[in-house]
């Protein structure tokens, strides 16, 4: 029997060790895997590469991940903490202890889809001529400068969804989906926490991440506690 359900966060994150690259879903507060971020915070893993739209939820729900200097590189579209203060993450970036790769958001999503979909590289007009294109190959298509962007993959993807079945099929509610599908495609081990693990299978035509992309699912109540970092 195929059964991708796990009972504990420890099992869900098994194998996530030093040097791992970790994609974390979440945008606007929706789809953030709070239980898994807290589980990551409780692990000893160091030299991490954190790949997420912003570091806001990682820093907010698992502050020790940055405070204990466990991250060596960040790939993000919004590598800025909220508010006027300089966060631990920003301090390490300013001190050169931590590398930041800024990626335009559409390119960020597309590089993960490419990584999971066997497309090693693609041309895009986004960012051409800007500081984020420095060092990138430029080619003109239809009179427009485009830059070559390469696929992005990772060891783990951590995602929150609404419902899952034992085959790893995932259904989102609202705007939880955001980067979840492309992260699941791009990661070697995809872990999804959901509000409800169904005992039956999900409806085949209303699945937002096909189970083929998912290795582990875990049921966890919403741990946001009403507060969003």
């Amino acid at each position, binding site marked *: 029997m195929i059964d991708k359900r796990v009972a504990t966060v420890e099992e869900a994150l098994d194998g996530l060790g030093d040097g791992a690259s970790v994609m974390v879903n979440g*945008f*606007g*507060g*929706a*789809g953030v895997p709070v239980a898994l971020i807290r589980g990551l915070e409780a692990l000893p893993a160091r030299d991490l590469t954190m790949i997420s739209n*912003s*570091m806001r939820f990682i820093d907010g729900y698992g502050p020790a991940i940055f405070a204990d200097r466990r991250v060596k590189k960040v790939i993000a*579209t*919004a*590598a*800025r*903490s909220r508010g*006027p203060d*300089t966060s631990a*993450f*920003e301090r390490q*970036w*300013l001190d050169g202890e931590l590398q*930041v790769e*800024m*990626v*335009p*958001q*559409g*390119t960020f*999503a*597309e590089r*993960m*889809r490419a990584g999971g979909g066997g497309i090693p590289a693609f041309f*895009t*007009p*986004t*960012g*051409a*001529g*800007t*500081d*984020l294109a420095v060092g990138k190959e430029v080619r003109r298509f239809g009179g427009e400068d485009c830059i070559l962007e390469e696929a992005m993959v990772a060891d783990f993807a951590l995602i929150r969804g*609404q419902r899952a079945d034992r085959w790893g099929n995932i259904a*989102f*509610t*609202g*705007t*939880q*989906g*955001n*980067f*979840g*599908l*492309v992260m699941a495609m791009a990661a070697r081990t995809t872990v999804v926490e959901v509000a409800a693990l169904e005992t039956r299978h999900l409806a085949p035509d209303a699945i*937002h991440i096909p189970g083929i992309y998912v290795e582990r699912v875990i049921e966890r109540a919403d741990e*946001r506690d009403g507060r*969003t970092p």
Partner: protein
Amino acid sequence: MTMPLSRDQIAWRAAQDLAEGMYVNLGLGMPVRVANFAPAGEEIMFHSENGIVGVGPVASEAAADPDLTDAGSQMITLVPGAALFESSQAFAMIRGGHLDVTILGGFEVAANGDLANWDARATHKGQLVGGAMDLVTGAKSVRVMMNHTTRDGGARLLQACTLPLTGLGMVDRVYTDLAVVDVTPDGFLVRELLDGLGPDELQDRSGAELAFAEEYGVLSAPAL
């Protein structure tokens, strides 16, 4: 001279250029307010780059769902006819030219249509580009909302941007608290000017040469 437009009044003015059936993305900050002033009775579909076509008003406290937010983390509602999808699809729409209009905030706009709006050089903070570079590349019409000058009175309409660019030659129209200015192949062309403000006064507050449309209009907005 009439008072410069408030942020809501600039948003109101930008909203007057939207029409039924348009697909429109509104940037974080000032631009999202445009939705509040969309022409009554006309159906305009607002896109949010986190995966929505059909963003509706901000949710009431009772209806608020933390799993239904816009790109600015506001808990929102959906209008009838809305669709939800994932990020790579949201940006395929943007990059693929399916949006009629994007309205973004700006730091600087150049006479050639260059826009700088993503890296304020707040040297103690990280960078934030988000979806801006995709939006200026993909939308059919790129419009910018910003105050005409910086807090210190420095110009934001410039011959060339000084801050890192978001996109090159993309901007079509700029809404400021003082004027509505188009970017044409020949540079800035003022379409509307605040009542009582002379063309020379606007030129003084700008860092590039302004042309004025033959019959430029009066920029005005209701009290909001």
